[in-house]
């Protein structure tokens, strides 16, 4: 029986997961542990109980959003690796509104969420404008913007958002601006639904509207898109803005949607690398919003399940990280291959 065309990416991804796990298993075995016991612990630690499952989803939440940032870029033919910086600004924006601007319940949570998304989108506009009208390559400009965002965000956090007496972090979000914790057993909050909802909205937009179609067309075949009257500047700005909204929401989710700190660390320690991790997640999820959700759950499982693997089987935490890397690598290969082929063919 032939696999339906729509499911091919899924089967390909599953095959590479299997390959990655086998390679990771060899590594675990080489270090003198039993791969079977290790993977059992990984699975049990990630999905074994309700609270583990919820914690896995808590780790997955920001990743599905930063994956979306990269995925939308790729769909529009862009290498947007600026999720990291956009996410920082999103966290700062959310912290400001959530922690320093009192508002009635309900409105406050929405305002803080939107502030985070808007801050992320505004930051994404810089490389977008540079690309659309000056032709600056987005890889260079987003990398530069990431560094500027890092230092700008730390400056803002330390100078304007700090909590007196708690130098390590900013003021916490006021109780009116916190997503409800779903269960005391984990750090998962209702922000998960917002993240999934946003990913689905983006999916509907890209595959169900004219503007979304134009965006994808520009990514698939820029010449055909131009011939069809698609304005490339519009596509660039649109994809960056959608990506910035997603990254901003990811940053906000770690401040107003993750106990127990409910604030941004002055070192940005509770958000750093989530943007970069999103690139791997997007590749595994085949640059599809829904695929990104599934891939994010897988990454969340590695983060949460790796804990038990280390605890029970004694697999070193470095080895757990290496395993992450191997799986990412194995899963990213088909997508990278497609991307490279497309670039080379051009």
């Amino acid at each position, binding site marked *: 029986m032939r696999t339906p065309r729509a499911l091919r990416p899924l089967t390909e991804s599953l095959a590479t997961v299997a390959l990655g796990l086998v390679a990771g298993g060899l590594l675990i075995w080489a270090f003198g542990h039993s791969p079977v016991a290790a993977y059992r612990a990984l699975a049990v630690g990630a999905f074994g109980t309700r609270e583990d499952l919820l*914690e896995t989803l808590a780790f997955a939440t920001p990743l599905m959003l930063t994956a979306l940032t990269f995925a939308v870029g790729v769909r529009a033919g862009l290498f947007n690796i600026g999720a990291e910086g956009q996410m920082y600004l999103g966290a700062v924006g959310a912290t400001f509104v959530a922690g320093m601007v009192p508002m009635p319940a309900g409105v406050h949570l929405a305002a803080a969420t939107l502030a985070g998304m808007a801050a992320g989108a505004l930051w994404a506009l810089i490389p977008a404008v540079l690309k659309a009208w000056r032709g600056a390559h987005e890889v260079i400009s987003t990398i530069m913007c990431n560094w500027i965002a890092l230092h700008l965000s730390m400056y803002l956090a*330390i100078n304007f958002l*700090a909590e*007196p007496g708690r130098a390590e972090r900013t003021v916490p979000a006021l109780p009116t601006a916190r997503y409800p914790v779903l269960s005391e057993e984990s*750090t998962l909050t209702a922000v998960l639904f917002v993240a999934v909802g946003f990913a689905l909205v983006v999916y509907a937009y890209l595959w169900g509207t004219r503007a979304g179609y134009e965006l994808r067309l520009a990514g698939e075949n820029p010449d055909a898109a131009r011939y069809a009257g698609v304005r490339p500047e519009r596509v660039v700005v649109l994809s960056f803005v959608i990506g910035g909204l997603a990254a901003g929401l990811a940053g906000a989710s770690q401040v107003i949607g993750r106990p*127990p700190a409910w604030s941004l660390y002055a070192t940005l320690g*509770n958000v750093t690398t989530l943007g970069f991790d999103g690139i791997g997640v997007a590749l595994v999820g085949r640059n599809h919003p829904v695929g990104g959700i599934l891939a994010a759950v897988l990454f969340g499982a590695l983060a949460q399940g790796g804990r038990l693997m280390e*605890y029970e089987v004694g697999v070193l*935490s470095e080895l757990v990280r290496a395993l992450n890397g191997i799986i990412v690598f194995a899963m990213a290969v088909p997508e990278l291959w497609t991307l490279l082929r497309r670039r080379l063919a051009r």
Partner: protein
Amino acid sequence: MRSRPGLVLAVAVALALLPQAAPTQAAPRSFKIAVVSDVGGRGDLSFNDMAFKGGEDAERDFGVRMVELVSKVEADYVPNLTRAARDPDVQLIVGVGFLLSDALAQVARRFPDKNFVGIDTFAQSIVKEKFSAQYPLPNLMDIVYEEHKGSALVGALGALLAAQYAKPHIGGVFGIEIPVLWKFEIGYKWGARWATEWLAKNRPDKAFTYRKDFVLWTYTGTFSDIPKGYAAAKAMYAKNAVAVYNIAGPLGLGINQAVQEIAQSQKLRMGPPFWIGVDANQDWINPGFVIASMMKRVDRGVYYATRWVRDGQFRDLVRRTQGVVTLGIGTRIAGQLAEGISVSTLDDLDEFIRMGVQAERLTRKKVLPASPAEIKSKVKTMREAQPKWVWDAVADLEKKIREGQVTVPMVVTKPDIERWRGELGYRPRSFLAAAYRSPQR
């Protein structure tokens, strides 16, 4: 298929009829402790490594088993503490460093049967603020240290060296300006002034009067930016400071670099200039140039906590102390001496060189600057090159603190810091420190 409900029922009945007491009658469970690091992790040669060392000491002396959970990101704190608490054999969970305060307060509430300890944390005050009905949580203990007393000792040491080498200043490089660091700052300055009074009485030939600009000090606004430590220390050594106290964690490496430059340009094999280590025994980092370290024994905290849990004293102690136990100089807990602050000696250098050896094995990077034997001999030579009265005076101050003949001010509030700076030396803050202040403060 139809028989399945019957089968399920049979199994359920069989299970229900099994003797329930079987598991509880089993041999006494093994006693495990769990140490959860902050993001510094293994190999930081400071807080986390010392906590793990304390766990190893407890394994050796109390027959417990330690499990280590290294936090890779801040989001790991709660899940790591939770993972440890869910292990039925774990009786004590230690969170290392103040960053774990929020997480400890949350997880300790969820697992009332487990004992939780935070090193340098303020988890109980978070409980008080957020869940005042439950304060103090009976299973949660913050272990804090008398840094002001240790800082007074090294402040005195610095001032005595300044007298010996006829230098006009000592220095202090601080991290982010938080109340905990005020304890170090005022302790250090107070100790320096105490030394000038001691000199006037005991060594009039070397005596000088304490001036308010005697201690040079800078809040760098960072605990991670090593070049800022270098820049601050360089300026102090340029003003001829005899020793600079590191109160900014890794910035000590920047101070060391400033010392190393002077040592190389003047072909020195030994200080002055010196620097003063903090938290761990850092004397081995540059043997001959680190005169001593103000040790905050994180390892002792883990060790004592394990003992208290083993002896069944833990909860009683929490009740009597509102959950905050202070380790320092001459501190007694539950009738036994439980100290956590001291100035490094030659004898405890070995333990910390071992820590360096272990870090080299873990990180596969060069950590120790020379062979352990060579380090030890260099430190010994440096210590012996200082006149005996210097060490005697420091020992005298320690004895006086221990016996309560003198009281080192412990400063943690804004009015207090203003007052003591007025008395011991005030200078407009550095730009960074001023910039750090939040608008509401």
